[in-house]
């Protein structure tokens, strides 16, 4: 170990990767802070919550600027604990305490895995400094390197919300105040990605191809399952939280491609994969923060997170609606917005790997992942038609939605800035991508002049501004050309509801909207339907019907509860050793000392 008291000197580093993530953290937290100031009239945090919020942002910055393992862990733990405190803001509710507890347990288990990985890394290099780890990377035994990789993948993957380690995310993110949810979903989970990047590209030498393949498979699973679970939700913030799982999956696809490329020594594939992943990191931070802030504004206006009680909000909150619409289109990867540009790059990276792979079986996984990404995109469109349509369109479904008022000016400024950023990052995809390439040299994709394209691969070309110009020009033509046929009037009348006056109850609900998809994927999401009919005594007339539908929590039941049951069983066995008798404890101490002496002899 270096120095007299190793680890007590905090070291820092600022390279391109750190700078990139620091820029994301700073820009998103600047916007959420503006929002938080405006939102304070709705949400009185506990005393000191603002301090905790600032500490949370500083801790995230410290994570990406840390230059050694000790500093990193210190910052990492501060980040986890401050965000735990912020999740607990509404601590008087039982559900909030439970969610925060799940978050605390998961993030500490994850930290344990990271510590283990760090200790193994420190053992080989004899130092906690990251630069030394990079220097000694090739000295690592390959099997030890694989163990470190797996430990780090579990640790960082939990923070990122990768399936099956995602279960804390849809619990903790919805219950936090919205500006905190925006930071957690938009930025904090990306630090799991940061850790994974550092681990697999800086601290470890190029490993076997299965590392990248594993990340590809996990990414594809997270993307598809994330969006499917999101579709099943009618709690707006939980829906958004599941979309974070989906988008982390998309980011992981890019990283997986880059990692396989690193194993097979394909610099262009590494560059395309990395730039796709990093671009999606920025984009997801932007639109997810926007959507969470929007959800917060709606929650404050209507007083619930339940989609089924919204409706008609576009007339009542027009600016929020416009911002939320931009965010919805961006997260659904619709052209010409930023989500589309980075998903396009992710597709290209998967195809590039498929093409560069020498054996057909290596090409299979990226192609399957491409199919999964295509499915994810289509399902995301379905999900955001549901989220936007049910919340903002048609008639209000309750008195609270009918009485909703537009958010305050600071909230609107924050959301407007992020919506503009979604448009700008889409139209400016080429400069942004080359900027990322300058920051992270291994992600410097060979780009031709004006179009976003990979001509060195002979792959496709895309000019997002061109598509945008064509869309706007042709939409204008579609509006103005028919006018040559003469003026027409438009008359306002009732919606046709088969002759009766339209009531909110006639509208399609969020649950009904997702029903075809729920049935199509019933083998995966396992919907449970519970219908009970009560008859009037002695007759066949129905007195009341109740209908409940929910999704079986597969991961909780079959993974986490199983682990918990095992742990409890082990604890029952261990309990016999702890029988309360002083003599027994003395015997334990005696045996322990004796063993220690024998071992240290």
């Amino acid at each position: 170990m270096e120095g007299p008291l190793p680890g007590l000197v905090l070291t820092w580093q600022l390279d391109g990767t750190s700078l990139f993530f620091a820029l994301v953290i700073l820009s998103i937290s600047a916007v959420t802070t503006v929002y938080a100031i405006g939102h304070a009239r709705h949400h009185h945090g506990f005393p000191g919550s603002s301090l905790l919020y600032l500490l949370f942002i500083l801790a995230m910055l410290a994570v990406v600027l840390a230059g050694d393992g000790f500093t990193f862990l210190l910052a990492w733990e501060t980040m986890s604990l401050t965000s735990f405190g912020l999740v607990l803001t509404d601590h008087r509710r039982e559900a909030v305490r439970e969610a925060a507890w799940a978050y605390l347990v998961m993030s500490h288990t994850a930290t344990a895995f990271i510590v283990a990985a760090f200790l193994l890394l420190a053992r080989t290099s004899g130092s906690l400094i990251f630069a030394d780890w990079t220097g000694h990377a090739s000295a690592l035994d390959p099997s030890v390197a694989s163990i470190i990789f797996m430990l780090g993948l579990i640790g960082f993957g939990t923070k990122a919300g990768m399936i099956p380690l995602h279960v804390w995310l849809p619990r903790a993110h919805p219950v936090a105040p919205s500006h905190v949810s925006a930071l957690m979903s938009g930025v904090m989970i990306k630090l799991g990605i940061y850790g994974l990047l550092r681990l697999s590209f800086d601290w470890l030498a190029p490993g076997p191809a299965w590392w990248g393949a594993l990340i590809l498979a996990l990414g594809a699973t997270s993307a598809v399952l994330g969006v499917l679970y999101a579709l099943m939700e009618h709690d707006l913030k939980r829906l958004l939280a599941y979309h974070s799982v989906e988008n982390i999956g998309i980011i992981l696809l890019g990283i997986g491609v880059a990692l396989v490329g690193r194993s097979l020594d394909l610099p262009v594939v590494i560059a395309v994969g990395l730039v796709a992943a990093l671009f999606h990191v920025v984009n997801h931070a932007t639109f997810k923060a926007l959507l969470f802030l929007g959800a917060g504004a709606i929650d404050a206006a209507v007083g619930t997170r339940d989609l089924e009680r919204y409706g008609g909000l576009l007339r009542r909150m027009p600016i929020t609606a416009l911002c939320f619409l931009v965010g919805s289109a961006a997260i659904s990867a619709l052209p010409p917005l930023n989500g589309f540009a980075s998903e396009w790059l992710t597709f290209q990276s998967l195809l590039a790997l498929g093409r560069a792979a020498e054996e057909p079986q290596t090409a299979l996984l990226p192609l399957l992942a491409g199919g999964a990404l295509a499915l994810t995109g289509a399902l995301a469109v379905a999900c955001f038609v549901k989220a936007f349509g049910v919340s903002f369109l048609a008639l209000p479904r309750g008195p609270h939605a009918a009485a909703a008022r537009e958010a305050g000016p600071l909230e609107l400024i924050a959301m407007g800035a992020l919506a503009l950023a979604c448009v700008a990052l889409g139209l400016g995809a080429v400069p942004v991508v080359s900027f990322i390439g300058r920051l992270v040299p291994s992600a410097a994709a060979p780009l031709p002049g004006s179009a976003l394209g990979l001509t060195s691969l002979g792959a496709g070309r895309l000019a997002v501004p061109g598509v945008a110009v064509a869309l706007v020009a042709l939409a204008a033509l579609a509006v103005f050309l028919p006018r040559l046929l003469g003026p027409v009037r438009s008359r306002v009348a009732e919606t046709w509801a088969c002759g009766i006056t339209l009531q909110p109850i006639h509208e399609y609900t969020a649950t009904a909207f997702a029903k075809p998809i729920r049935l199509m994927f019933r083998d995966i999401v396992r919907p449970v339907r519970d219908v009970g009919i009560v008859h009037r005594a002695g007759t066949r007339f129905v007195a009341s019907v109740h209908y409940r539908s929910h999704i079986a929590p597969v991961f909780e039941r079959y993974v986490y509860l199983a682990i918990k049951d095992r742990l409890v069983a082990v604890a029952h066995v261990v309990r016999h050793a702890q029988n309360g008798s002083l003599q027994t404890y003395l015997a334990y101490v005696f045996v322990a000392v004796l063993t220690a002496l024998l071992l240290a002899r």
Partner: protein
Amino acid sequence: MNETLASVGLSFLQLSLLLALAPGLNGLIKRMKAVLQGRKGPPLLQPYFDLVKLLRKDAVVSEHATAIFRWAPAVYAACFATAALLVPVLWSSAPLAGWGDAIALVGLFALARFALALAGLDTGSSFGGMGSSREVAVAALAEPALLLVLFAVAWRSGGTDLSSASHYLVAQGVAAVAPSQLLALAAMVVVVIAETGRVPADNPDTHLELTMIHEGMLLEYSGRPLGLLVWASLLKQIVLFSLVAALFFPFGVAATPSEIPVALGAFLLKLVAFAFVMSLVESSSAKLRILRVPELLGAASALAMLALVAEVVVG
């Protein structure tokens, strides 16, 4: 500058051609269906008369409708008009080649669906919601299948660019025929049926709530906006047909300006052939139950994936 002018001019020509042919294609399919079913059928030019009538008619707008409902037809039309410029039709390069590839094309289809599905929800009518809900569910399976088909066909030309793929196929001629293309074609036919709202996935001729998908979303539209939506849907149909022509039957494509009349003839011939196939499929099969449609589309996705894998492993 000259290049920009040329692509604007070509865009104008190609878009006008497709817009002009789109209603006629539908009239032809309707006529062929009628003959196959022993009916006389409407005149060939009927879709044109319908469109002109609709575009001159006043509209009735729901009192609950918002700006989404008013803007959706323009966005929907713009998406397919842009898509029409990304597909090579008479010559092997699209007017806006280089601005967007297969992924952009599918992205534009998704944007159009997003706009129309929201408009379906906007009036609060159950029919609109039903149409939107079913449309996004069916598309959730059709869209991946379409993308995978395009990947498979474009694979050997080296990327996702539709114009390069068309160049490659034209240059290779018969040598380009491969088993993977048969799989891709089979998947593509199912996708075209689903995306154009035809039997057995949907029924273009009905407003019966048990079966309708696409028509459900249009139910609250009337007059000029409806005319715009109908024309845009017809444009979508001809864009999909042009895609099939460009990627699976690339013969007769012009290389020099003097060959354009021949190319136009070949294109019309292909449209007539596709119309015949469509009318045959529609006359010989029954509409599937809505919950069975995913099975059909799932099979298409699987075929498309197989085509891509076959292309990589065998090709």
